[in-house]
């Protein structure tokens, strides 16, 4: 009896590098008050007032600032939550 040859069914897929970091950027806008933006950062990023104020000033002075960095999924959540505060948040892969 001939032996049955079993062909392994191998599929390949590209998996992104696990150590890729993602940045959440916030752009300056003319509508939201500074105190509102500080409150948004404190609530979403869970940082204290001093850190939130520094981030807000960076956005205000430079027009944009990275407010959070990390893995892609949490970065997506942070960016979405900031957009729910009507801040202009964007997601970008870390260079």
């Amino acid at each position, binding site marked *: 009896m001939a032996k049955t040859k079993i062909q392994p069914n191998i599929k390949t897929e590209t998996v992104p590098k696990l150590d890729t970091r993602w940045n959440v950027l916030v752009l300056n806008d003319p509508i*939201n008050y500074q105190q*509102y933006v500080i*409150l948004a950062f404190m609530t979403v990023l869970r940082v204290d*007032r001093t850190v939130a104020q520094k981030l807000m000033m960076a956005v205000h002075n430079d027009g944009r600032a990275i407010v959070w960095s990390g893995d892609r999924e949490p970065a997506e959540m942070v960016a979405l939550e900031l957009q729910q*505060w009507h801040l202009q948040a964007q*997601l970008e892969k870390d260079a």
Partner: protein
Amino acid sequence: MPELRLSMTAEARNVLSDLLRLIAPAAARVSVNRAQIPNLDPEIATYWAETLSAQAGEEARLLATAFASAKGEPAIIVLRNKAQALAFLRALSAVRFALKDLVLSDIPNSQLEDLEDLDDESLPSEKRHALACYSCFGLLQSSLIDQIDNESFD
């Protein structure tokens, strides 16, 4: 956190309520269109759009209910907890964005809060009306932020 109160004249309440009725449907659309939805993954993009759209609907309802419930003179909006206060703050931000995008797009950013423009008769009356409402919504936001117990966020 104790309940927070926003007080305004009955006339202001009526004017702002009328404007909200007009602008609320468009505000929801503006809110989703303006969002920077990433195109990394269609599923994520759909989730973001649905989340922001649902939130815009909730914000419109929250504002409509709050202003409708504020009766008397002065008219007082009562926000019973922190979550409600923060949601109200966000909703006011959405309305200000909608006003800027839909009615005040030709007004320079530096003049949006300039109350002298309210007396500028070269501006059409609907623009002056929108500017006044824009400022009023901002005043309500500032008042609310001042009242929130900042310590609870540290």
